[in-house]
């Protein structure tokens, strides 16, 4: 019980200030480590300030002091009871070569599911075009895909000049931003219990399968590989990884087989989802450059074999990166079977 408020505040103030100073220091330097004495002092100050708050809460006319103490105690509470990793300094090299591939492998099951859905879409789209070529306008209503493949290849190979002269940078920027937006949407739709993510992946598969069968059917397989592989071997896995992140979100929401409550399940995957989507953005920036500066040029400007070889090298490097990078010898990783 407080009898003299003025004296109470005067007596307790040094403890509040000390706690606030410690908090400022902790928040400014997340990597700083405290000694045992400092930890004991921190805990003592927290308890003392919390006790002041409990006392002042019953006081009828102290809203400002109460707000001040609530703020300080709240900050100390979050420092003491926070169980997640501290926010560490960001090391880009470590993030790219360790954090990203390890996160991918940790949730590789969701990636396989993402691949399976896309393959199902490919089979559906390819089958539909093979069985009913008239379904083309419905399956892929995009002007550049509506054309007869043989005619398009002939036109592309006839044009000797640089069709994208002065526009390549803009085209590349448009591709990057568009693909990153689609990836974020694929991730975000995981909040619809995964239905939206599954639809996005399936529809991507449908278009891919339909285009592939259309060009193979027309005898333009080499052109198709030369056109799609340089950027597609990065772009398609990126969308699949975005789908992986969306499916992780969906699985956390559904919570099958987990005894954790929904907030705890979402909290557990939040960091990994962010890592994956930043990784996707990084890959799509590369894919955007390649699509604008390389994929749009065909024979006789660039031989198809060279483009296909470039695509193969990229694919091998991507597979090695995702499967091997960041592994520690002899140490099993989370998610390893």
């Amino acid at each position, binding site marked *: 019980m*407080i009898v*003299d*408020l*003025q004296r109470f*505040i*005067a007596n307790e*103030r040094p403890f*509040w*200030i000390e706690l606030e*100073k410690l908090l400022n220091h902790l928040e400014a330097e997340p990597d700083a480590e405290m000694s045992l004495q400092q930890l004991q002092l921190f805990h003592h100050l927290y*308890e003392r300030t*919390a006790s002041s*708050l*409990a006392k002042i*809460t*019953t*006081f*009828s*006319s*102290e*809203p*400002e*002091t109460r*707000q*001040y103490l*609530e703020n300080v*105690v*709240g900050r100390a*509470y*979050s*420092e003491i*009871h*926070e169980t*997640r990793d501290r*926010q560490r300094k960001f090391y880009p090299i470590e993030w790219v070569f360790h954090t990203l591939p390890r996160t991918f492998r940790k949730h590789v099951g969701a990636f396989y599911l993402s691949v399976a859905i896309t393959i199902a879409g490919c089979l559906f789209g390819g089958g539909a075009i093979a069985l009913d070529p008239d379904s083309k306008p419905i399956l892929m209503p995009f002007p550049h895909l509506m054309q007869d493949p043989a005619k398009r290849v002939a036109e592309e190979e006839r044009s000797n000049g640089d069709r994208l002269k*002065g526009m*390549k*940078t*803009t085209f*590349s*920027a*448009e591709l990057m*931003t568009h693909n990153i*937006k689609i990836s*974020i*949407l694929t*991730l*975000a*739709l995981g*909040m619809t219990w995964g239905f*939206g993510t599954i639809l996005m992946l399936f529809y991507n598969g449908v278009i891919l399968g339909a285009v592939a069968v259309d060009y193979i059917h027309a005898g333009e397989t080499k052109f198709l590989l030369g056109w799609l592989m340089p950027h597609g071997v990065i772009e398609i896995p990126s969308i699949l990884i975005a789908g992986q992140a969306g499916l992780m*979100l969906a699985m956390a929401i559904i919570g099958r087989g987990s005894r954790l409550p929904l*907030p705890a399940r*979402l*909290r557990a995957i*939040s*960091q990994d*989802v*962010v890592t994956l*989507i930043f990784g996707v953005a990084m890959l799509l920036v590369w894919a955007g450059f390649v699509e604008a500066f390389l994929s749009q040029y065909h024979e006789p400007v660039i031989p198809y074999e060279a483009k296909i070889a470039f695509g193969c090298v990229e694919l091998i490097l991507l597979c090695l990166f995702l499967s091997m990078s960041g592994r520690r010898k002899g140490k099993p990783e989370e998610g390893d079977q």
Partner: protein
Amino acid sequence: MKTSTLVIRTPEGIVFSQRLAGPVSRFAAWFIDQLLIQIILLFMGLLLSLLGIFTSGIALAFTVIGWFVVGIGYGIFFEWSWRGQTIGKKLFRLRVVDVAGMRLQFNQIVVRNLLRFVDELPFLYFVGGVACWVSPKCQRLGDLAANTVVVRTPKVVEPDLDQLLAGKYNSLRQYPHLVARLRQNASPTEASIALQTLLRRDEFEPLARVEIFNDLAVHFRAKVDFPPEATDGVADEQYLRNVVDVLYRTRVENGVEALKALCDES
């Protein structure tokens, strides 16, 4: 169950409460932020148009990337730099906080901002608005995924006590030990009711005014028994003024000064 308050109870038994922001104030803050984003993009466009004099392709590419980065990065940048606030949220005194009172992490800010892509579907945050309306803690889908809530941090306004209590002798002040007891016994809600009744006294019908001041005076008289010399002949309304005076004036003189000193030092 829908609630307007986020209550956090620590293992030490301390309880904090924060008022949750409603969809309307959040929409207003978002609208301000959108205006600011448009202004930023306008300036960026002007600068890049200068670059376009030399190389139009690169200028256009930067414009495309700039639109994208500013559109997505504005919320992430400000909420991370200003601990859960953007300029719009600052204006409307809103703040993003962790739902369990923990430290707001960077990944939470990123998730809640990226999930705007779903919340803004099909137009003007319809999905987010419906989610906010249905959710017990007024969370849009992005908040649900990131475990965040948006709270209101209203400024506590000082009541104009000088105008309210000017020039009157307060008989209760002759008994400081009883005044101290009254301040301990009166809850914050009771003190606030007494103050609000005095501030709105002219809005009451004459009979209702007499009745309500009588009820409150009886209520506060029962809290602490002041000697008859302090209360005899004092009308109910004046008695309540005296009560508010000792409850709030002491704070103005002592508590706030001490708090100001505290803020200055820290």
